[in-house]
């Protein structure tokens, strides 16, 4: 165990999916062979073999402490994908590795141990056990591992405190509101102190205000606990708020993987571009992306007087630049460690907020 965790600290991914395929249907093996041989499309596989492709050749890895969001619409295969990580679903082909262990090769007992101690899962529909109190729900993973009642009550109460439900341990789930129920779901996932959290659209069933609250609470927790998290959502705003990296999934394929800024500023295809069109760039895009190099600017506009210009850093957000440029008519100077590297004038700032990049390609 110690060896494994130190290895993952040395840069080995905590979760890794390698060429993962999942098909549903009768003659899966034949379908898989002909997909490999002829690289059929999803529609062709359905037509020729009657098999539905859920996940198609997906590879990705999640580093320690990272929050990795998989974003896709319903039917894109994202919920199927997350269930491969703790092997609630067996892959048709490909492998899942957790901390250097091949999940597909685990025996039943080892698999149960992995589920109970290494991963914690939160579900869209909460999936709390209605016949158990909040505390008994939270302590479930400890109970199946055979911990005695006193110690698991103690651990469960700590988890209940963390999600700010102190005093509700004796209640039953149906006595709680939806938001509180999902906090119980979160407490259940973290109670056994797993290193990995699997969140399957945890906040999608909640109304917007509660969803926002829970997102904030989750991000605060994630910051404190540093758990490696795989987070499924159909809401790009949520993915951008929460994710360190985002993968866009469509028809079982990962279309694009990148940081929120990369996804928003460099959408790989029109599908992703449509998604990010409505996303506010203010907090996502940084000065380094919209600025014009100092040399190019001075070649065009002449020497810039730095005396009354305001300065910003390359990783400042557009929001911050907008705030600064309200105070002055002069272009903003972007300084990296005190040396001016670029300039942002009003036009490039507004273009940046509009999301029309890259700016240099634009005429006049």
């Amino acid at each position, binding site marked *: 165990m110690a060896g494994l965790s130190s290895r993952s600290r040395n840069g080995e991914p905590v979760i890794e999916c390698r060429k993962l395929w999942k098909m549903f249907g009768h003659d899966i093996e034949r379908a898989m062979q002909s997909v490999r041989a002829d690289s059929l499309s999803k529609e062709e596989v359905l037509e020729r073999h009657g098999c539905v492709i859920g996940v198609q050749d997906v590879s990705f890895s999640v580093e320690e402490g990272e929050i990795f969001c998989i974003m896709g619409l319903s039917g894109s295969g994202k919920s199927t994908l997350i269930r491969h990580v703790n092997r609630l679903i067996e892959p048709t082909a490909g492998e899942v590795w957790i901390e250097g262990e091949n999940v597909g090769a685990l025996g039943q007992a080892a698999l149960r141990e992995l*589920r*109970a101690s290494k991963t914690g899962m939160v579900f869209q*529909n909460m999936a709390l*056990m209605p016949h158990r109190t909040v505390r008994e729900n939270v302590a479930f993973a400890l109970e*199946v591992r055979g911990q005695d009642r006193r110690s698991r009550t103690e651990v469960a109460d700590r988890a209940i405190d963390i999600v700010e439900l102190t005093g509700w341990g*004796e209640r039953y789930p149906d006595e709680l509101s939806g938001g509180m129920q999902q906090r119980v779901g979160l407490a259940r996932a973290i109670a056994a102190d797993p290193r990995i959290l699997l969140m399957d659209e945890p906040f999608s069933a909640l109304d917007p205000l509660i969803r926002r609250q829970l997102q904030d609470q989750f991000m605060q927790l994630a910051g404190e606990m540093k758990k490696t998290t795989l987070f499924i959502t159909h809401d790009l705003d949520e993915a951008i708020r929460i994710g360190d990296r985002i993968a866009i999934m469509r028809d079982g394929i990962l279309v694009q993987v990148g940081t929120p800024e990369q996804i928003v500023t460099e959408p790989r295809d029109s599908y992703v571009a449509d998604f990010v069109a409505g996303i506010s760039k203010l907090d996502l895009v940084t000065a380094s992306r919209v600025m014009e190099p100092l040399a190019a600017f001075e070649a065009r506009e002449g020497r810039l007087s730095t005396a009354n210009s305001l300065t910003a850093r390359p990783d400042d957000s557009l929001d911050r630049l907008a705030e600064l440029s309200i105070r002055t008519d002069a272009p903003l100077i972007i300084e990296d460690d005190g040396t001016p590297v670029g300039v942002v004038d009003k036009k490039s700032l507004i273009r940046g907020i509009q999301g029309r990049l890259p700016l240099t390609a634009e005429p006049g």
Partner: protein
Amino acid sequence: MAVGDAFSFLDPFSGLDLGIADWADGIKQWASANRGTIQPVKRALNDGVLAVEAALQSVPPVLMIVLLALLAWQLSGRRVAVIVLAALVALGLLDPGAWALAMTTLAIVLCSVAMCMIIGMPLGIMAAKSDRFESAIRPVLDTMQTIPAFVYLVPVVMLVGIGNVSGVIVTIVFAVPPLIRLTSLGIRQVNQGVVEAARAFGASSSQIMFKVELPLAMPTIMAGVNQTIMLSLSMVVIASMIAVKGLGNEVLRAMGRLDAGKAIVGGLGIVILAIVLDRITQGVAQSGRKRGRRHWWQGGPVGLLLAIPEGLKGRRSQDGSARRGPATPNGKGRDNQEKEN
């Protein structure tokens, strides 16, 4: 297979004899040949039934009525306790001999139902887990429920002889199918999301069965137990034909002598027993929380007993910390407290 001389294509059946009845009759020979192995098992089962009956008969009627009423109160609430009390008093008033006969019948019914649960619940669980087993067992259950009891009465008597054990066996044949069906249905209806969550937290299949599926299927399973009890009671008259004593035997004898009065007394006795058992088991099927308490020991006579020392200690609220957590936002908790009985 014998084909008669006058074989007709328009009426082939009267000329054909496949010998099914003779073949089925062979059971008799098989039974009498295997009597040696069957007898010890039969004796043990018979002793069990007699022990239950002796226990029930040894309790004085008034004490039994009080005990059953208290049990009904604990399991199913005060209203049911009153119904049970009234029904049992009516049973005693029916006829001077009615109480003893009713206890004999109750003993055989309780034994039948216990056997039905031992047989039926595992089969129901298997049927829930395997579609193939479910579709294989369904026609068998249909047969058991619809075939006239008299048809298997004779082979059973051939096999084990007359008496209580045969009575229990024919009752099981008739009464176990709904328990198997409803156990399977109850488990199949359990929310798959919850089962998946249990799996995701490392539960094994047996842990899922006992910690998730069976508790959640319990209301449906209890409905099956309730049906099994009702069907067992409806078999007591038929069972009395193979020398099972009790209320059924009373009805049978009255019919033989065209004594309508005695038949009605026996019949009413069976109905009253049915009401008592039905109300108690239905109350069990309903969770205590629906009646506004968190634990079974917080209501009924046990709750009252536990509350007495609490009440003496400065007349504090009976269950302060246990029930009154933080206020529920939607006021559900409060509703529950008001509905308590």
